[in-house]
């Protein structure tokens, strides 16, 4: 089976890999690059477990063909912390017990980051609709919503201090 050579930037690092054209970005990340933090829950774009940022925009990596990302910049859950410094969302998810089994957590973190990047001060309703593409079966979403609210508060206070 012929494979295409694909160049892109993954979590800030120039990266290249080989993949058959029908391979999803999800499978390429997991199987070719070993980035197993991005999960498959459905393979049809209905659960959000495979959420990644492509050029800053939230996407389901299961719906993207690997060759589409030639030249694109991809952020996965492995790329949202700053070295050892967890992203405020990662910290508030931990402190707020916003994960139980943890399988949906990477997708929620990426989606919540996209949400807060675009809307730093969302209402509860905006958080709920912004995360509606991510299914969680354990938490009932309550602690996830609260963790995103808390992270927004922390991010806003940090950004104000920076000004």
């Amino acid at each position, binding site marked *: *089976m012929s494979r295409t050579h694909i160049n892109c930037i993954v979590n800030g690092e120039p990266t290249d890999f080989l993949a*058959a054209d*029908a391979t999803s970005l999800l*499978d390429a990340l*997991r*199987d070719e690059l070993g*980035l*197993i*933090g*991005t*999960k*498959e*829950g*459905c*393979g*049809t774009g*209905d*659960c959000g*477990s495979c959420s990644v940022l492509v050029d800053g925009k939230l996407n389901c990596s299961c719906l993207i063909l690997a060759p589409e990302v030639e030249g694109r910049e991809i952020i*996965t*859950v*492995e790329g949202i*912390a700053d070295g050892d410094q*967890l992203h405020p969302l*990662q910290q508030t*998810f*931990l*402190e*707020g*017990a916003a*994960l*139980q*089994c*943890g*399988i*949906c*957590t*990477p997708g929620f*973190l990426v989606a919540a980051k996209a949400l807060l990047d675009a809307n730093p001060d969302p209402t*509860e*309703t905006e*958080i*709920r*609709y912004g*995360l*509606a*593409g*991510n*299914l*969680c*079966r*354990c*938490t*009932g*979403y*309550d*602690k*996830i*919503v*609260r963790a995103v609210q808390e992270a927004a508060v922390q991010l806003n206070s940090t950004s104000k201090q920076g000004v």
Partner: protein
Amino acid sequence: MTATENPTNYKWVGTRPIRHDGFDKVVGKARFGADLNLPGQLHGAFVRSPHAHARIVSIDTSAAEAMPGVKAVVTGDDFPALDPTHPNYDTAVNCMARGEAFYHGHAVAAVAATTKAEAKAAAAAVEVEYEVLPAVLSIADSMADGAPLANPNNHTKFAPPGDPSNLATITNLARGDVDQAMADADVVVEMGFDCAHVHQGYIEPHACVVDYGDGKANVWCSSQGHFRVRSMTADVLGVDNSKVKVVPAEIGGGFGGKTTIYLEPIAAKLSEKSGKPVKITMTREEVLRGSGPAPSAELRIKIGATKDGELTAIDGWMAYGVGAFSDMAGLIGAMSVASYKFPNLRMETYTALTNTPKSAAYRAPSAPHAAWAIESVVDEIATELGMDPIDLRLKNAAVEGDLTAMGMPHPRVGLVECLEALKASDHYQSVPAEGTSRGMAVGFWFNIGEESSATVNLNEDGTANVITGSPDIGGSRASMALMAAETLGIDVYSITPIVADTESVGFTDVTEGSRATFATGKAVVEACEDLIEQLKARAATIMGVDVGEVAWVDGAAVSPGHGGGEGGDPLTLAQITAQAKRTGGPLTATASLNAAGAGPSFAVHCADLKVDEETGEIEIVRYTAVQDAGTAIHPSYVEGQMQGGSVQGIGWALNEEYIYNADGAMENASFLDYRIPVASDLPLIETIIVEVPNPAHPYGVRGVGETGIVPPMATIGNAVKAATGVRMTSLPMSPPKVLKRLNER
């Protein structure tokens, strides 16, 4: 909110530390079932029956075997023929059909190939000739006179030997004189209900990797219990348990659905035949078509009451549709009837087979169906009597010594406390918001104990490894660490909780029945108590006193007048472990037990909702869950269980259902059309933890995992009745069904 948080001033129990496995899970390093890849591994794919019931006339694998990349093909003929009376016979046949396919989606063959795409293509090339057989698709069909057999191997359990039957259990319970009590009752309400099949809906599909070599299957998979995966896999392969090792991966949700196996023996046989490791991951469609949903049900409940609100009699008929293999859903449904005193009781329950996927446990299995019906009828009685629904329930609530339907006396339980907590809550005390209506209901689950082992190893620097065999499905490692920290008197973060493989810790039953924190936690506490005795002995040696003069206080050995530490201070655990080499060697302890005294957990839920009377849509505006946790070891994860159970119940109430076509094929086998709740469907789920300690656990734990799914359906149905005057009797209460009933009003 916690009603009585940390009532006994524990240092660690009742606190909310960050879970020990949390970091890996937020940075993407945690390895779940599909996250291990072995060098040279192949990928497996299944051939599944396109018929609800068919004889397999022949399977021709030659074309598939000739395809590129294909290394092995297996069918039922590759597995030993178990005796039909073997406890894992049904599991074996469910993993791979033998001569007869019992449901649409039943595995009939599997292939292993170099790539996923090659495996999929080869599976499509396996030629199976079927002779279609009559299928039974509903409970009514299954129980009808002269119905075809869903599975000719099924015989009614606990019955005299006889012909095969579609009924797996028939349970008749009775006490008092129901007919007389109904005749004497001031109010009698009788209603019929039904529930569709629903799926556990864990986000992680079933997945495993198996590397077979030297006669042994090395299995890596996610499950709720790797010791059960070991024994089931060994039985299906026809080998000893010693020939199967199971390493637990992180588990991405189970809710009962991962207490059995589907893939592991198949991957093992493919690995044996190909000589390479084989990975199999189900697609979401396969999860829905080929793994266990919860049973469907048909129920009829009649309750009689006096005019002052005493529930004098219940007369119930409940049938559970469990798919194509034996099950005890009807019996367990009967066991779940336990919330009220009911001096007169008659309960007739059935477990009926249908040609649909084999049911698996789902969070308090069988109880939600029964509670949906009973709590709806109790609500009708409250309305007829003009009583507050909490007051009616308080008047009849089961307390210690009252009998369940099975005739078992309740131990100390907290139903009254839960009802009173809801009654006093801000939610119940408030007037429902404009345009909303309120409903409430009760749920019960008995919880179980069973076998657990734990090993606690103290490290030379005074830290500890707590090793158990209970998969951590939602924070149990943190609970084990908290109980160990509390018992030993050391910092919770100095403890490393570990879930070990089947060769590294003693036998431990499945994480089910809300038992892990109760039973495995009890084993952890016992091991820690053993260690304390050892620590005291070592301290006595160091101090030069008799061990009887040493006490263990706050993580240190104390002997009045004989302090062994600097300046005569108490000798800390770390000071003792530092001297372990010269006082007798490493400090380790193991405890194993078959835990008795599981504490039942009651829950009481309350919902405010709106019904769009032109479209039938239901919007949940406010929701409160109250539950007796016994003691909340880590309150955040107790709340999480309550909230998660509530929302699964809300999904069951509103939209979740298996939709079958006339041929028994599921039509909505995707997360697009099998509609589990999304974040925007819901309000915050308020929680009130009630703590009525379980006397049979050192810290008072009752399991909390399951009860939360029991009350939501009736809670919502009762609120819909309050909003519209319509009593919904069919689950789910989806918009088309609600609108139809509103139109008929």
